[in-house]
């Protein structure tokens, strides 16, 4: 029975997305509570999955009982289970936030559509994490692309349409490029299943080296466009500037990370280390990641709109994750996975607290944050904790991931990368610290009032407080998840 849990999780989300339109005649609170109960069911079943897989090994699930050479197969190993739990848990917290957001988010009659799209996105994310088949990953990738584009442009304002058109164009070029790579691999091996493909490629890659290098190039470019790696990042800031806050949080914390998981599976399970070392992929990825870390921060300093600034900051943090992957060692991979989780928490906390500020005060420029901490203490405290985590101050989870990344780069005699990590941290200081200082230390003249709890709807405050507690917990006790992440990273067979 526990072997059926992955498919039951996905079907719960699909069934919820289909039942919501039929419930639209009743009051809306029933829909919200129903969705929340389904999310909690999937969170508990993901917990069970992690403990079961840590003891017994990966779950192999063939659809319809067909053999894996001709059918579709799901392979749920430890990394997939951990990222699955992270995605569903973070979405539950953002769901709690969006229940209370009435004006800056979506309008009242659009509510049903927003939640249908959200559950379809979750269904497709679980599918792309669990799958063991390259073409199946393409299908789920397209589902995520179109529904994400709809969830960003759900406010019917003028500037959302042009931004989402550019988003669709770039993402489709990425998907079609990935599909071309899959077609080239099918031409060489005749399978699309990951296990059979890697077995075939390992024995014959000397004969077909041109096909394999072109396929590798197309697939890395395609996934790079969708994961906002540095030269292909153009769509991300525009998409953030015009979206509601909960959609921005989902886009920047969850969806971009899922494509990095696909990149990890592609590099380390299909093309294993012999091929990658022969074509110097490690050097190329390190250069791309290092450039992204620095240039993302430099662009962020110049922005005036706060959501665009947070978007460019995401690009530089994704550079960290790709640098961890590009080390090709299990400590680097463990640091990349830990940073996926910790950056997700921190970026969601930043976007949601900015969303509360916009809801209450209707400001958007980053220079208008003066004296805000006296009126909204809880929001600005969580913003401060998350921003310090981005910089890398100890006691937050951002410090642990930078530390692990530094240890991984020293292990591999590439110590010059530490300079780039530290430089990027200093650049982060330049644009986060003025906001914190101006909100806590300057106040309007002639009005000194003590701290008071702000009057915003309680779901928004609860979700932000939960995220702040999460960042501090993973900073002080990282071994809660670091042991399991290290165990998952060693299963990939890197040194």
């Amino acid at each position, binding site marked *: 029975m526990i072997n059926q849990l992955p498919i039951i999780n996905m079907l719960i989300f699909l069934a919820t997305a289909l039942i919501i339109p039929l419930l639209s005649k009743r009051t809306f609170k029933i829909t919200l509570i129903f969705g929340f109960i389904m999310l909690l069911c999937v969170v508990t079943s993901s917990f069970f999955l992690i403990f079961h897989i840590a003891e017994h090994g990966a779950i192999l699930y063939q659809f319809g009982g067909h053999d894996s050479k001709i059918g579709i197969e799901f392979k749920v190993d430890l990394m997939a289970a951990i990222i699955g739990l992270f995605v569903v848990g973070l979405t539950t917290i953002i769901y709690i936030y969006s229940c209370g957001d009435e004006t800056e988010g979506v309008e009242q009659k659009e509510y049903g559509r927003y939640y249908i799209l959200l559950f379809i996105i979750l269904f497709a994310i679980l599918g792309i994490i669990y799958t063991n088949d390259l073409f199946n990953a393409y299908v789920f990738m397209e589902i995520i692309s179109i529904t994400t584009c709809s969830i960003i*442009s759900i406010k019917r304002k*003028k500037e959302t*349409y*042009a931004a989402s058109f550019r988003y*669709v164009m770039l993402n*489709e070029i990425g998907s*079609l490029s990935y*599909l*071309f790579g899959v077609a080239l691999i099918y031409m060489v091996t005749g399978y699309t299943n990951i296990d059979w493909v890697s077995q075939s490629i390992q024995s014959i890659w000397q004969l077909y080296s041109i096909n394999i290098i072109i396929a590798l190039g197309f697939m890395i470019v395609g996934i790079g466009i969708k994961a906002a790696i540095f030269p292909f990042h153009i769509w991300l800031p525009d998409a953030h500037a015009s979206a509601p806050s909960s959609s921005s949080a989902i886009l920047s914390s969850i969806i971009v990370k899922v494509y990095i998981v696909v990149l990890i599976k592609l590099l380390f399970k299909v093309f294993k280390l012999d091929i990658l070392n022969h074509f110097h992929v490690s050097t190329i990825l390190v250069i791309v990641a290092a450039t992204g870390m620095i240039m993302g921060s430099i662009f962020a300093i110049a922005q005036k709109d706060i959501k665009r600034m947070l978007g460019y900051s995401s690009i530089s943090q994704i550079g960290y994750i790709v640098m961890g992957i590009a080390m090709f060692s299990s400590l680097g991979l463990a640091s990349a996975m830990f940073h996926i989780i910790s950056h997700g928490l921190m970026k969601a906390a930043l976007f949601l607290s900015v969303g509360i500020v916009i809801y209450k005060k209707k400001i958007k420029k980053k220079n208008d944050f003066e004296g805000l901490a006296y009126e909204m203490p809880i929001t600005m405290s969580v913003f401060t904790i998350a921003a310090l985590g981005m910089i890398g101050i100890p006691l937050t989870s951002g410090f642990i991931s930078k530390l692990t990344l530094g240890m991984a780069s020293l292990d591999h005699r590439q110590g010059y990368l530490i300079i780039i990590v530290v430089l990027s941290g200093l650049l982060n200081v330049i644009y986060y610290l003025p906001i914190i200082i101006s909100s806590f230390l300057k106040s309007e003249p002639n009005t000194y009032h003590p701290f008071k709890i702000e009057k915003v709807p309680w779901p928004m405050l609860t979700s932000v407080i939960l995220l702040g507690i999460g960042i501090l917990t993973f900073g002080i006790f990282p071994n809660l998840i670091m042991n399991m992440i290290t165990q998952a990273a060693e299963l990939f067979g890197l040194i």
Partner: protein
Amino acid sequence: MQIIQAFVDHINFIGAVALFLIGLHTVVTKKNLIKRIMGLNIMGTSIFLFLVAIGNVTGGVPPILQQDPNVNYINPIPSVLILTGIVVVVSMTVYSLSLTIKIYEMYGTINQDELTYLIREEEIHD
């Protein structure tokens, strides 16, 4: 002579790659929004042509069961992959076209240069 022989033997693959590049060039350089959507369709079609050319067997018949025991069928798996791909490309085209209609209602133009100019104007007045 060798080169021309190799070119004619692999004409399907060369055509697919040429179509992919033509589609990519259209998306990147043209200014009209509808021409860019057509460019995406051309890119998708080129990949389907590539998949069909992979699955071809010289002297094969369509993969429908026949009574004759020694007849070569062509590979049916690329056809299945192409069917899924066509559905995906069609749904993406429909979505982009409805976005184009909304952009035309809001801004009055579907030329990318004029759109950028109008958006900058609004940002300055904001």
